[in-house]
């Protein structure tokens, strides 16, 4: 059974989704989804352990060997991401039952969980596969289910947000498909490792260059890199709170993974440096993302929206690390993938708790929240501190590695800008803290603390934020090896 782990990771949620639809009752569907997600998390742990001890695993679907059939290829990088996605899905799902019950219409709740499972399966499928076309197929699964999840938001604007995302996402997916098609035309293969071997021969052709351009732009649309980020704030702000927490913690991470996978594994580490200064472009766009998105975040009235803009900024940091092109930079990006998932998970979950009790996440409505919901407010503050990058939190670790990596390359202006960017984060978090702690609650409010079933997973994430900020052994060693492997593989 252990040899089937890679495929079980994906087909478990994939087959659970239609079963869930047959089950019908929302409460049942929630329990079933949670159990599935937890099992997927268990599998991803086993996988990471197996890869860590024995090296990459390869699994041939249908028993057809690699370039002819589809191969699942698990190395440290995607094992690490599989763990992030499945565990965040599990934790968020644990705390969502009330939130979903409050925000989604009763007859749509089962469909909500079906979509959630499909989205999870899609994301895991993108991560696990070693086949370029298979990536596209699962990208479609995850995207379509994401549009559905977003459109289930309480506000009618959620429909519009979802539609916007649908258009942009479809363009992105089509670009990726065109790129994959062009690559197939020039190499005759769809397997990633096979592509990596056969692409250098034809690397000088314009067709391959166009393929590269289409894939990169397509992926950047999905990961909301500045200036292609405009879909994200609306989508996150109007989606049901639980969905925002899930997507913010996982979906963009998977897109960043795709960018890393295509640019390092498939096209090779030094491919992008050929004609256009892609590295410099990434660093520049990353910095602009950090500054513009943080500034906009400071001006937002709705906190959920502010944190959504902050996601765009955080993606900027990841792209800067990627743009450095060094092992240290790549490691910083990977670390931030993990850490950002933890902090955004915590922040959006605390907002979900707020939305559950207050029915709103507007800044004005949060006055004096610390007296009504002390634990939730505390969780938000700790998540915010982590986002800023205060020592003893995970945010500090990623900033630290990123700054070190830039200094290694002698780019001290970039390092300074990164630190200034953190100050902007202080500003948009402080606004919330000020309102929550130093303003009196309206006398009429009858709000009480969020239920335990929400607080427990929320605080689990908060504790993880602090734990992995102090004991960094696991993520640091895994990301270091993964970064080395990526750069080694590319050469």
């Amino acid at each position, binding site marked *: 059974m252990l040899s089937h782990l890679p495929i079980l990771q994906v087909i478990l949620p994939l087959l659970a989704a239609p079963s869930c639809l047959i089950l019908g009752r929302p409460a049942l569907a929630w329990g079933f989804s949670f159990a599935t997600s937890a099992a997927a998390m268990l599998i991803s742990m086993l996988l990471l352990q197996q890869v860590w001890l024995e090296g990459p695993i390869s699994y041939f679907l249908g028993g057809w060997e690699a370039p002819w059939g589809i191969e699942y290829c698990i190395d440290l990088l995607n094992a690490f991401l599989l763990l992030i996605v499945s565990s965040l899905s599990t934790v968020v799902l644990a705390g969502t039952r009330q939130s979903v019950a409050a925000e989604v219409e009763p007859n749509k709740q089962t469909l909500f969980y079906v979509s959630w499972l499909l989205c999870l399966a899609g994301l895991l499928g993108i991560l696990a596969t070693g*086949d370029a076309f298979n990536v596209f197929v699962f990208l479609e699964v995850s995207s379509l289910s994401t549009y559905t999840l977003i459109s289930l938001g309480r506000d009618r604007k959620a429909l519009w947000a979802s539609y916007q995302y649908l258009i942009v996402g479809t363009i992105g997916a089509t670009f990726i498909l065109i790129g994959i098609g062009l690559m197939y035309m020039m190499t005759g293969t769809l397997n990633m490792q096979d592509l990596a071997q056969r692409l250098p021969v034809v690397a000088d052709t314009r067709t391959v260059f166009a393929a590269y351009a289409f894939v990169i732009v397509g992926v950047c649309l999905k990961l909301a890199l500045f200036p292609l980020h405009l879909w994200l704030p609306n989508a996150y702000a109007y989606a049901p709170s639980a969905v925002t927490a899930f997507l913010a913690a996982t979906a963009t991470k998977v897109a960043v993974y795709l960018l890393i996978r295509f640019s390092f594994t498939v096209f090779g580490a030094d491919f992008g440096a050929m004609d256009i200064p892609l590295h410099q472009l990434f660093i520049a766009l990353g910095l602009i993302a950090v500054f513009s998105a943080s500034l906009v975040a400071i001006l937002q009235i709705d906190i959920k929206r502010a944190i959504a803009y902050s996601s765009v900024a955080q993606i900027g940091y990841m792209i800067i690390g990627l743009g450095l092109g060094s092992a240290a930079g790549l490691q910083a990006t990977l670390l931030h993938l993990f850490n950002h998932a933890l902090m955004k998970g915590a922040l959006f979950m605390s907002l979900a708790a707020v939305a559950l009790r207050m029915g709103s996440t507007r800044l004005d409505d949060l006055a004096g929240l610390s007296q009504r919901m002390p634990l939730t407010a505390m969780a938000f503050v700790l998540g915010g501190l982590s986002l800023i990058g205060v020592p003893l939190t995970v945010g500090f670790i990623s900033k630290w590695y990123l700054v070190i990596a830039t200094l290694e390359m002698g780019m001290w202006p970039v390092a300074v800008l990164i630190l200034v960017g953190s100050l902007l984060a202080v500003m948009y978090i402080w606004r919330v803290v000020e309102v929550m702690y130093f303003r009196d609650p309206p006398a009429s409010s009858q709000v009480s603390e969020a239920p335990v079933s929400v607080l427990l997973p929320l605080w689990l994430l908060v504790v993880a934020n602090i734990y992995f900020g102090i004991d960094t052994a696991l993520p640091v060693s895994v990301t270091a090896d993964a970064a080395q492997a990526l750069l080694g593989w590319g050469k």
Partner: protein
Amino acid sequence: MLIATAIGIAVNRDLLSVVMLSSIYGLLSANFFVTMDAVDVAFTEAAVGAGISPLLMFTTMAIVGRYEKLPHRWSLSALVLVSITGALLLVATMDMPAFGAPDAPAQQHVAPRYIEQSGQEVGIPNIVTSVLATYRGFDTFGEVTVIFTAGVGVLSLLMVGDRATKPLSSHLLKASQHKILRIVSKVLIAPILLFALYVQFHGDYGPGGGFQAGVIFAAAIIVYTMLFGLDSARQVIDQAWVRVMAAVGVLLYGAVGVVSMVNGGNFLDYDVLAKDPLHGQHYGIIVIELGVGITVAAVMVLIYFSFAGRLVDRGHQDD
């Protein structure tokens, strides 16, 4: 002609003619694929592009009205972006191997094995089906899931509670009063259903398979619904039952994979389904194609029912 049609679609303001044009576009591209010797793709395009998607678009139009409301305006930045993308595509074609060249990489690397050995390894004459259903069977599984996901999405958007108890409304679409249409379609629907079954089970030997069959099957049911009203269609086919069938198709496909895992092979390895690997491949392909057909047909019908259900609701509001 393709380009002319595409421009027509972009410029036209009348949605009815836009849908007609896009249907023509589908048919034209199907012909285009035939000339490129991609018969299976052409078949799918004809069934989907020229068949079912205009049907669904008509239904949407019945809800939203026939004319675009937005004023005409041209966006310069959009034009620039589209031009850059188009230029990049043109640049990409410059270094492409010539169409149909035998020495093109796409013909040399993976393809020869599909062509030369699929006869012995899979044992069915239609190579396209071999590639779709076994060599890259997992992609097809993913695609079925995509369709299922789309169905779930539409359902979650358009579902408006339980309406089973509402009174019948037979004047759903005006077509129901046309005698000629009713009689012709009554004659036609049975052969269409039969043809769908033929396509379903003949995919091993000629162009066809679950996707096309599912779409054709669904089209027959949709035509019936259009002419005889949603309620009489619902008396034949229960909507909850269609939902379950959509899930069952995916599960059937997945079950084949799980069974092959239990039998000691990898996921979707049909060799281990029977003593003789060739028989195993046959069984596997037939069952998964059935799964594909069921899900596709069920989802299409489900989408149509959801749209039409909206329409009926509006009719009730107007009354």
